[in-house]
């Protein structure tokens, strides 16, 4: 019998009975061929690889992260709850020590879902990684978490949720936002006033290949993780950087993904996007599972690799080398981006957010208390083109008394008559309210 070097949990939920719409890429068939490949490889027979049953996440699990408008039920389907629940199963498996690492091969994805949810953005309704991380923090007392998002699209939802959190290092590697949805994720997006440098964006040029991704990993991401010293590393393992992917322009491979995973050694990997369901996903997923289990992945290869994969051109290599040098300067050697803010200063910002899938426009007004001791009190007023108007207050888990007091005050003073709903997310007490 073949044995895995590392005990690995696999949570497979292909949601064979759910699609966004009858002909949408996020469809029933999406993980069908992945399942075929995983079964045919016999990966589930390997000693040390253990498959877990999914469960449904509860609305309570969502409330640790999101302000759902008008409520959780309206913006989720069963499928979202099970997809998020699959991540919770992965978390339990790893944190209880049953396995050394786990891969939640679930759909639908979540990394475009922001803190406030009015509907579906970029195929995502709720942020399954964030729901998992906040569950872990509450249940297992973990504080410092790093997320490495290797989906081809900028993980703008996850970035939004952790923008102000200095305890979460969010690193997104993606195709340059000037050439792809959602059009964000530039180097200068590096975290809010209280969490400067805890958001790191690595926009790569179209055509980036195995060499480029692994260079970025070895030269920048690994040293950055070493510097941050997370207790837990999560990989948002989107697979649309693949050279066969129909909706992106990158040039990554199954073996590349496997190598990346083997070097990154995430505690938990969560599937995100990836729509080359026949000629990329089966091989990438097999590669990731094998890499997590510590197995030799040198035989993992797309059948069309030799014919269609073109090594990364020299000009792209050069571009990436320069980019990495710049990133190193910014994030590894001190942090020249850092702006000094006065303790107690209230910083406001206005934002417009577009929900492409559901065609919703959202306007946000955000208030943050600058704080040197915690992630800061946060309030958001949000109005959607559907006519919903809400006031939401977030008290971070390790909030200082000053921030907590001011946040509670904001919540108390918000005039009920001006809003459809008032939300309070008090992570200190674990209280999540809506009136």
């Amino acid at each position, binding site marked *: 019998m*073949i044995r895995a070097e590392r005990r690995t949990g696999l949570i497979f939920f292909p949601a*064979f*009975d759910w699609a966004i719409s009858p002909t949408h890429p996020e469809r029933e068939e999406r993980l*069908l061929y992945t399942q075929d490949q995983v079964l045919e*490889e016999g990966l589930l027979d390997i000693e040390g690889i253990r*498959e877990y049953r*999914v469960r449904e996440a509860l609305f309570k699990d969502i409330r640790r992260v999101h302000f759902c408008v008008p409520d959780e039920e309206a913006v989720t389907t069963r499928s979202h709850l099970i997809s998020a629940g699959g991540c919770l199963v992965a978390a339990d498996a790893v944190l209880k020590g049953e396995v050394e690492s786990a891969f939640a091969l679930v759909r639908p994805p979540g990394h475009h879902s922001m803190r406030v949810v009015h509907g579906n953005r970029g195929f995502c309704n709720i942020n399954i990684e964030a729901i998992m991380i906040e569950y872990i923090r509450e249940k297992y007392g973990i504080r410092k978490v790093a997320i490495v998002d290797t989906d081809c699209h900028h993980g703008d939802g996850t970035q939004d949720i952790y923008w102000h959190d200095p305890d979460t290092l969010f690193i997104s590697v993606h195709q340059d936002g000037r050439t792809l949805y959602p059009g964000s994720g530039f180097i200068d997006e590096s975290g809010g006033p209280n969490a400067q440098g805890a958001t790191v964006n690595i926009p790569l040029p179209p055509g980036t290949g195995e060499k480029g991704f692994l260079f970025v990993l070895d030269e920048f991401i690994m040293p950055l993780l070493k510097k941050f010293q997370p207790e837990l590393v999560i990989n948002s393992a989107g697979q649309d950087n693949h050279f066969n992917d129909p909706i992106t322009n990158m040039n990554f491979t199954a073996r590349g993904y496997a190598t990346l995973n083997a070097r990154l050694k995430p505690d938990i990997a969560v599937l995100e996007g990836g729509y080359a369901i026949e000629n990329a996903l089966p091989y990438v997923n*097999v590669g990731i599972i094998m890499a997590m289990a510590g197995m030799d992945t040198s035989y993992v290869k797309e059948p069309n690799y030799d014919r269609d994969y073109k090594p990364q051109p020299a000009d792209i290599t050069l571009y990436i080398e320069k980019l990495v040098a710049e990133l190193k300067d910014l994030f590894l050697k001190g942090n020249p981006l850092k702006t000094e803010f006065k303790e107690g200063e209230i910083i406001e910002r206005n934002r417009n957010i577009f929900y492409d899938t559901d065609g919703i426009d959202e306007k946000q007004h955000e208030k943050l208390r600058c704080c040197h001791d915690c992630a800061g009190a946060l309030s958001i007023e949000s109005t959607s083109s559907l006519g919903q108007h809400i006031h939401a207050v977030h008290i971070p888990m390790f909030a200082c008394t000053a921030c907590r007091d001011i946040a509670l005050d904001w919540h108390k003073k918000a005039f009920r008559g001006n809003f459809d709903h008032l939300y309070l997310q008090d992570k200190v007490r674990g209280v999540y309210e809506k009136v």
Partner: protein
Amino acid sequence: MILGLDVGGTQTDTVLIDKNGVFYESKTPTGDNLLETLALALDKTLTNIDPTNIERMTFSTTMATNAIVQGLLADTGMIVSAGPGMDPALFSVGPSYHVVEGCLDHQGLEAMPVNKEAVLNASDLIRQDGIKLVGIVTKFSVRNPAHELLISDWVKNSFSHIALGHQVSGALNFPRRITTTYLNAALYGLHQEFTNAVIRTIGKKDLQAPRFLLKPDGGTVGLEQSLYYPAGTAQSGPAASVMGALALDGCKGNSIVLDIGGTTTDMSVVLNGVPLLARHGIMLGPFQTLVRSLLTRSIGMGGDSEIQIEKNGNLKIGPLRKGSPVAFGGNIPTPTDAMITLDLIRIGNGEAARDAMEKLAVPLGLTADKMAHEVLKHTAQSIAVSVNDFIGYINSRPLYTIHEVVQEKKIIPDSVVIIGGPAPQFADYVGKALGLPYRVPSHFGVANAVGAAVARVTSEISLQADTQRGTVVIPEADVQDKIASDFSLEDASSLAREVIKKQALQAGADPSDLDITITEKEMFNMIRGYSRTGRNIRLKMSIVPGIIPEWNRRKQDDTR
């Protein structure tokens, strides 16, 4: 009249069944020579019976399992082609294993042609080793058997027997396909000898009726038809017990079936008369296979298990058997000695059994009776712990659709059916330990032989249709056809139904007893660039394990 014969590790059980039910049962010690044991058991059974009255007979055999465990597998070469994934060298089996270039993808499309030169070269190397048997397996051959058929065609004149991977099972699992194909080739000669010998033996006794072998899935296959799939007849003992319990008890509701023997206790679950099947194939010796099997678990706990008192005074029963019970001349006390002490059965040397209990009891300040009672209670509790663990395992199997998650039917057993030699003595203890009502059917001691006798022929096929490619494949039945773009789920169903009928009849099924069940039915729209380009249909159809109609027509009189 129906004859059932189940070869167990220590005893071979035989029953005869007529229109009134079981009217004869006997036990014969299992010897080293399987055929001698068989002849002996038949001699005993057929005294005073007119063999021409026998209309049907089923045997279980340990031939394949013994051959695997004793290292008697014939030298067999393997020619394998893989494509991307795990290093195919990891699946090496047998003395002459060769990987050749060639690749089919998960849809069965050729990604790389098979390298003919490499195949011929491998074939030469196998022959140079003096090997006459070969197994041919390619990855995803169940989606498209073309490469296996091609390789087979190139080497067919070089070998006396060729086993092909896609015929083994429609399930996706390349490593298991390799081992199962290997075993089918490596056991071919032995199995042929065995079936011929059985035919001679029963011929000598003028037994002319249809004869069957029991399979680990609780179904049967015609003796002659089993020739090419010997691995499929290995290790059917636990299935015999389940089918016996099903026949004798009916197993209504959610029943746990416990077969308590001398050395082990086997457990399984029957839901409203249908036994649960294992998700993957059975394990044969060190080989993970694709051989379909009932879901059973065996623990080292039985009437003859060793009793120990641990340092802290706790009782420990099993998992080993260290010789006979004290009542039968052994040195180590066993639960059987406890039953004898409590006068639950009157066998062997009762005094010796009581002395043994006494010896255990004194340091604990107990009487022999109390000790014996504690032993049985503890044994039952240990069995109950394992049963609950087994149920937990069943209830944790993965779910892949929202429907399944929402429906989430947890299996909660509502009764326990207990069979095996010491069933009546243990039943009350086990029922209490599980907190469930229990039943001990008549003929509990030979339930396995009853199960073998009355199990119906089973069969399974897997259909995959891809309307974009215009193909349908049923690997187990070697069906590959072109289909039109409007090929529907209904078309798939009727094709599958036709094929499984044919296959079951070929395996010796009774045409009036073809209980066909769809075990899996999925249809996916294939979406390419925001439009539907075809349908992917997957269908699994089977004739599930069950009891032949003759048994159900018997007069309900099993009390004789």
